[in-house]
């Protein structure tokens, strides 16, 4: 009961947050130097064309009327794109490109979770051994390299392996499922994911297509998740180390519990507590990162569309996407709080 009341309270408190975010975006786009009319007709356009378009888009109305329309359209996803795809429904446009972004985001969360966390736990259970040092040092190096730089390097390397020119005859194009082009070539059409991953799911999986899509997204996902992976590795290590040396582990040993039981039952559960906010926080970074990653890897996703909408002052489209991102982040925050109370009984909803 109190859990639901807490969620409701959090939702109510998030209304001002959503409102300020979309208002801020509106102000920046409408009062800033960007002009959607110029973006559509070109800088040289003049006279009647411009005037007609301005009227068409409603830019001649008083600002508060424009703002009112914008808020309503954004919250109901009912706007129409001004520039990016003239006149198309924002809802449909977003729906079309959401697939690749979700696909990329999911792998960018799952991969670090299943690589970084186990590595970190392993390092924490074997502190100061060579494997711990290797894991730790590579974690630091991995985390220090910025996403966009790593992405460019990785792309250059993968492209260079075409025709078996990579080290030891490595060829990214023929490794695993055969692909025509390396990740990020403009011909990539990620919209096919929906066809493979969505509809045939009911009748069965097309595994070869699944692996093709996985391979295409893999470099981007690894690089996008790289900093989370390193963060989870390092935090997992510290959390385990801290708990392994704690008094309750001593008590558990004195009880005669097996080492394995102590680690799996007592240590891991406690080590998860500091990991939860890290994982959810990294998810925020993924949203920002996906904008850059999709641009570099040429993935036709939400992030890329958002980038273009901002560039061209496509207010209805940008507003809708920002609204979606805000909603995702707020839900993640609430989810994090709920997870906290499940994992750590000391955290409650009372004052």
């Amino acid at each position, binding site marked *: 009961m109190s859990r639901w009341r807490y969620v409701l309270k959090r939702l109510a408190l998030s209304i001002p947050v959503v409102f300020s975010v979309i208002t801020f975006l509106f102000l920046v786009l409408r009062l800033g130097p960007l002009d959607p009319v110029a973006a559509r007709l070109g800088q040289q356009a003049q006279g009647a064309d411009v005037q007609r378009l301005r009227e068409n888009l409603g830019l001649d109305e008083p600002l508060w009327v424009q703002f009112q329309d914008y808020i309503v359209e954004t919250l109901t996803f009912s706007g129409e794109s001004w520039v990016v795809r003239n006149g198309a429904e924002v809802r449909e446009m977003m729906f079309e490109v959401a697939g690749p972004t979700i696909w990329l985001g999911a792998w960018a969360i799952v991969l670090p979770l299943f690589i970084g966390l186990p590595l970190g736990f392993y390092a924490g259970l074997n502190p100061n051994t060579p494997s711990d040092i290797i894991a730790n040092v590579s974690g630091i190096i991995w985390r220090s390299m910025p996403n966009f730089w790593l992405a460019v390097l990785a792309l250059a390397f993968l492209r260079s392996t075409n025709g078996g020119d990579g080290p030891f005859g490595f060829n990214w194009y023929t490794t695993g499922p055969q692909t025509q082009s390396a990740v990020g070539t403009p011909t990539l059409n990620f919209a096919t994911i929906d066809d493979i991953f969505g509809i045939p799911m009911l009748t069965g999986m097309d595994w070869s297509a699944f692996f093709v899509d996985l391979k295409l997204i893999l470099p981007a996902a690894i690089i996008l998740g790289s900093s989370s992976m390193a963060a989870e590795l390092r935090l997992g290590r510290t959390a385990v180390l801290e708990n392994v040396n704690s008094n309750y582990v001593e*008590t558990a040993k*004195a*009880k*005669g519990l097996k080492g394995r039981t102590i680690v799996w039952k007592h240590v891991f*559960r406690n080590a998860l507590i500091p990991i939860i906010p890290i994982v959810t926080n990294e998810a925020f970074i993924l949203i920002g990162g996906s904008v850059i990653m999709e641009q570099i890897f040429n993935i036709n996703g939400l992030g890329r569309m958002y980038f273009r909408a901002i560039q061209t002052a496509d207010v209805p489209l940008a507003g809708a996407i920002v609204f979606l991102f805000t909603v995702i982040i707020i839900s993640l925050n609430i989810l994090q709080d709920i997870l906290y109370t499940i994992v*750590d009984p000391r955290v409650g909803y009372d004052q």
Partner: protein
Amino acid sequence: MSMETVGQDSDTDETPLIDVRNLQTAFFTEKETIRAVDGVSMDIDSGETVGVVGESGSGKSVTARSIMGLVEAPGKVLEGSSIRFHQLETVRDYADRFSGHTVDLTELRGEHDPQELLGRIQTEVTAETFGRERRDEITLTDILAAGFGDEMGITDEDDCVFVTERNGDSPQDITAGFIEVTRLDGERQRQMRGGRIGMVFQDPLTSLNPVFTVGNQIKEALNLHRDLSGEEATREAVELLEAVGIPDAGRRVNEYPHQFSGGMRQRAVIAMALACEPELLICDEPTTALDVTIQAQILELLAQIQEERDIGIMFITHDMGVIAEVSDKVNVMYAGEVIEQADVYSLFENPKHPYTRGLLRSIPGTQSGERLETIEGNVPTPTESASDCRFAPRCPEAFDACEVVHPSHVEVGEEGDDHTAACLLYPEEMPETRRVNVHREATSDDRRGDSA
């Protein structure tokens, strides 16, 4: 199982429940070897509370950890140490379940001569190594239990059950024997921990896992050692919580540690330690983190538990007041050694060792002048085996010989009351040169080559 069997056990009159002999635990660091426990001997009977007292760093906790087998790398219990767990029922049980790790001394006695074996030991050993006064008192049991049998091929490295007397071949016919705690490993170690020897730690606030309910953590022990699970285990856990005086135990059993107060948590930890009906309970400063009223309650609880279950308690503390209240016998530790051993009345009425006297004088209210008296300086970290008295630099009564002769334990009390102290001031009736000689001989006369 504890109460009746202890009564039937004809052996308990002579042999203690647990017998620690020449326990040496060292920590090997890159810089030096720290001899945290250096030749500690003590024994504990069922139904008896033995206090271990000393300043921080005197090796009290490491002694307890060595008994529990909780000393971890870089720490190690050294060869020559022996901790014998004599409870007959446990010995029979172990001999039954781990027959491959049982050494039958009744057979081996015919085959080996202890004096001859002594000559074959590679390292330097003295009678003191085996907790004996003279070299010819050393028995085969002593040599094998201390771990010297491994290198001679008589025992295996993981042999841990030693049978000294038996009427027949079956494990139930064993009439005397012991489990050598220092040689336990793996499953045998875990059965002993918690199952036969329980431990209560210093800080109740952190010694329970915060993310599991108190009941869950008690049931874990019940499940492990008594094969109870489900409803049955819950009922037993509730009973245990009631037994340690937690009100409304039926509801409390499903609560988390943070919902308990400090004193209640310590009660829960005690309940957990009692869950498997141990024969020996080691309490490592269990009341240090609690306020005085709660401390009194916990001490009362321990006394009551001891009366009901007839368990042996090893009580570690640095608080002389607590020692006076709970213990029957007291071991005063300093820098890894026991320096005075006596029953509680003799110790408080008639302390012999200058260190013990210093400790008693530093209890507020007992000093002679205005200011509280203290012992100057700190406990040294023992890094080498002692060739002097480790307390000498802080001792008000030290003389020249204290720096070159390591004192051994001598009788200091009335005839037969087992009051001993390791100090060159004793035996009191002798003149100084003879006293020093007594100690010098006790430690050097038995060195190999001299008497063999």
